[in-house]
């Protein structure tokens, strides 16, 4: 298996674990400190990019920290997959949260997703204001472009 394929499958695996184990915790906690702690734990669970995968062409422009996004469209299943890494922990946690909801969806399923609401469910909107997070917008925009949702 190539490094890349390995990373994609490890990421998918990690997202399944995160969804089952950590995501419920995020919804249950109410204080912002614990939410941030869990959010960053979530990001930690997502595999990092090896130095040879931290390629400049995968960098997201407009991010305060270096952030890499890798996209793969699986022809056989017609499903979209991503892997993500960043030097900064909060952005990694937030994107992990987004990928929990997006990874492995088909193009038509992705069109049903309200990207504005990706962070609403976990009650992040009220106490973390992800929209203030520098660079998150750039990541979400790139993601939607890769999914063919934007031109």
């Amino acid at each position, binding site marked *: 298996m190539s490094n890349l394929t390995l990373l994609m499958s490890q990421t998918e695996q990690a997202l399944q674990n995160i969804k089952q184990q950590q995501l419920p915790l995020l919804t249950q906690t109410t204080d*912002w*400190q614990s939410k*941030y*702690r869990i959010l*960053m734990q979530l990001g930690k669970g997502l595999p990092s990019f090896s130095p040879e995968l931290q390629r400049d062409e995968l960098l997201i422009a407009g991010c*305060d*920290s270096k952030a890499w996004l890798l996209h793969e469209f699986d022809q056989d299943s017609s499903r979209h997959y991503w892997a993500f890494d960043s*030097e*900064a*922990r*909060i*952005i990694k946690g937030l994107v992990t949260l987004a990928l929990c909801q997006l990874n492995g969806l088909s193009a038509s399923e992705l069109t049903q997703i309200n990207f504005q609401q990706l962070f609403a469910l976990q009650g992040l909107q009220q*106490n*973390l204001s992800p929209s*203030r*997070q*520098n*660079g998150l917008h750039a990541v979400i925009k790139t993601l939607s472009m890769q999914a063919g949702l934007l031109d």
Partner: protein
Amino acid sequence: MNFDLAAFRAEFAFFDQNPDWVYLDNAATMHKPAAVVAAETEFYQKFNANVHRGAHQLSQQATQLFEQSRDTVAAYVNARSREEIIWCSGATAALNQLAFGLMGSVLQPGDRVLISAMEHHANIVPWQFHCQQHGVQLDVIPLTVNHQLDLAEFKRLLALKPKVVSVTQVSNVLGHIQPVAEMVQLAKAAGALTIIDGAQGVLLQQPDMQQLDCDFYVFSGHKIYGPTGIGVLYGRQETLELLKPLLYGGEMIQQVSFSGTTLNQLPYRLEAGTPNIAGAVGLAAALRWLQQWDQSAIALHKQQLLKQLYEGLAQLPGIELLSQSSKNAGIIAFNIEGEHHSDVAALLDQQQIAVRAGSHCAMPLFAAMHKNGAVRLSLAPYNTEQEIVRTLLAIKQVLEILHG
């Protein structure tokens, strides 16, 4: 005179409107006292007209206010004459005018310009761009291990006979105060024209152009309690005459025909288009307002805050201080070991502490320090001891969240 902090702070309506915030991003822009807001408002409400052109009394009145503002600035910086004060939109515009304006008139292919590794991009990129176009060599004064300018290297680079030396008075990232008076003397002795970027330094103490004796000094109004969009390019009259204008049109012109154009006298020659009239009036109001306070008491208060913050940070575990506390204008750059500056800033923002994080328009400085960024806390005299306590607690909280 004593410093009445409560009275000083009460001049800033911003804090009434934003009582939950601690504002430590003063190096980016400062808040405006009531006197400045009132001066701008009054100008628009009572005196609004264009300057230097109307045939009516209203224009004459506006012109008078505008030119009185120039006099206020000239007196504030102890210029030799009002013609030495050129209005511009800010330090960036002034530095662009200088880099553009000296090419060809002063700088010829093969000549050298000397800047430092500590400069804001506004004092790097215009030089880089125009030097490359004109075949001029750009040299850079490196840093010492303590993140100060290396004066031995400066002297060595002066021996290469640069025609222009352009350096910052205070590092916008570290707060370190540079020995610009000494550097100006050395540069002049080496035959260079001298430019001081006073964007962060203008607040240190009232600048005295005749004493500092530099050829040019630039600053932005918004970093000295004034409005945004107004700034000052100070120059000695002889050296201002050397500048090729960057912009053409409007009052800077005396006579136009299609066979040629004659330019107006200084200072108008370098002020194309309708100026920021209300901004100039606002900046003059800021300087007058500032002079009503005891400067040494203000400075002492800021130094006490700096000490409190610096010592508090030094006591926290895992804090890496990039700034030194001595000869510091009130800025502390730091990192939390092993953590990204943007995470630290986000967790402070969450606690309503306004800071800046990143490379602060000074990427070469970070390259020289082998860092990819930092969190910057920048103080102003309206900050309070309680705000420092709250900031230190907030940083403690950040440490707990990141390590917990």
